[in-house]
């Protein structure tokens, strides 16, 4: 972050991967790809490949952690050791994955009708098989589909996107290089019906006007992602499953 490198992130109005500033990467969403899970989804978003499985409502473990008024939502986001082109990573939680698990969980704590299942837990497991920038927003997008697929009641659908700024241009759907060397990174999640922000983080330097513009851009982008989420779920239910899907 800080733009202190020689990498040209915008050349002739095009980004490093040839996209226009408001252009998203290709997004493919599949629902119900883990038959053993109560609900599941796979999201391929540019070079990101993300798997999400939802289990529950099920018995809360440990029992003393149970809430007699509502279901406890648990979220575990994890990067695979082979998710980056660089060296083999380490398995298990990191400080980063712990934080991301928390902010992703807080998206769904807003949306799930948890009062319906007192004393239980709902587990949302997210595995980043392959990463190329924007894994947390792709994870929220995947988890929303998996929760719907599990029949967990929610008050709204949610989609997420990362906005950013590089060479003083505002960008939609930040890639890995832009994330690493750009001026700012703003991942956010927006609900479909109410257009509320359920996840928003940022780093770098932005003006208030830039932030306002970014949220408008995010609204357009999340509409597109929402359509793909709905399409994935409709395909699953119209075909009675998703047995022959390709990874």
């Amino acid at each position, binding site marked *: 972050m800080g733009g202190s490198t020689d990498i040209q992130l915008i050349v002739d109005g095009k980004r490093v991967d040839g996209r226009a500033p408001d252009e998203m990467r290709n997004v493919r969403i599949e629902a119900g790809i883990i038959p053993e899970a*109560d*609900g599941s989804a796979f999201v391929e978003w540019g070079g990101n490949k993300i798997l999400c499985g939802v289990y*529950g*409502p*099920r*018995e*809360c473990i440990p029992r003393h952690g149970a809430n*007699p008024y509502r279901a406890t939502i648990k979220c575990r986001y994890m990067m695979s050791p082979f998710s980056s082109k660089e060296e083999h990573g380490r398995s298990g939680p990191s400080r980063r994955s712990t934080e991301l698990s928390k902010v992703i969980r807080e998206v769904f704590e807003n*949306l799930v*009708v948890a009062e*319906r*299942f*007192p*004393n*239980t*837990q709902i587990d949302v497991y997210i595995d980043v098989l392959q990463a190329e920038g924007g894994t947390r927003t792709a994870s929220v997008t995947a988890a929303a589909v998996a929760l*719907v*697929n*599990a*029949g*967990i*009641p*929610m*008050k*709204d*659908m949610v989609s997420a996107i990362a906005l950013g700024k590089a060479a003083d241009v505002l960008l939609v759907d930040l890639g890995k290089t832009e994330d690493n060397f750009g001026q700012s990174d703003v991942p956010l999640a927006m*609900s*479909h*019906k*109410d257009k509320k922000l359920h996840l928003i983080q940022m780093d770098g330097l932005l003006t208030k006007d830039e932030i306002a513009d970014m949220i408008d851009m995010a609204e357009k982008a999340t509409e597109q992602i929402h359509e793909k989420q*709905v399409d994935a*779920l*409709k395909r699953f*239910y*119209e075909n*009675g*499953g998703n047995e022959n899907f390709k990874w």
Partner: protein
Amino acid sequence: MDKKIVMPGEKIADSRIRAPNTFYEGEATFATVIGTLDETGRYIPLENPYKPQVGDLVVGMVVDVRHAGYEVDLNLPKGGFIPSRDIRVALQLGDYVICKIKLVSEVGDVDLGEVKRLPMGKIVRFPPAKVPRLIGRKSSMVALLKENAGGDIMVGNNGYVWISEKNNMPLLLKAIEMIDVKAHTSGLTDEMAKFLKSSR
């Protein structure tokens, strides 16, 4: 298709209608789970964890034997409970039972009664939202399956299906899986009749 698929948060009526898995905002009603909405405005969930209701018929397996009674796995976060004083026969660990839900507490505890012990067989898990299709109109699907597979079948509202060992097990398991996959299609009973006839 005369049915439309609706998502959580999608409006299903401009007025307040009473239906499970919905919420109101102003005077309108919204869905909370994925479901179908037909021309008459009827909203049916496509996916929905089982919510125990008093009077439901449920299938389960005895997983704990205690002094005061039996704990029964019901495909729920917590087992159901059969008080010893309410039944005459002694149950054993691993017994299959069919019972009626007598009480559901505020925190989700389920008390069971009218217990019947089921003979040898197997329990399979079936999506609770699709149970009505497995039973069929006036139990037509269950009757069809029994007739062709040769044994008894008990479908619990909780999504556990007990099938007697007397059945042609591979045929019946395949048929149940087909009903799961094709639950949303119309003319399912006819299609199953054809399938069962051709496999006999």
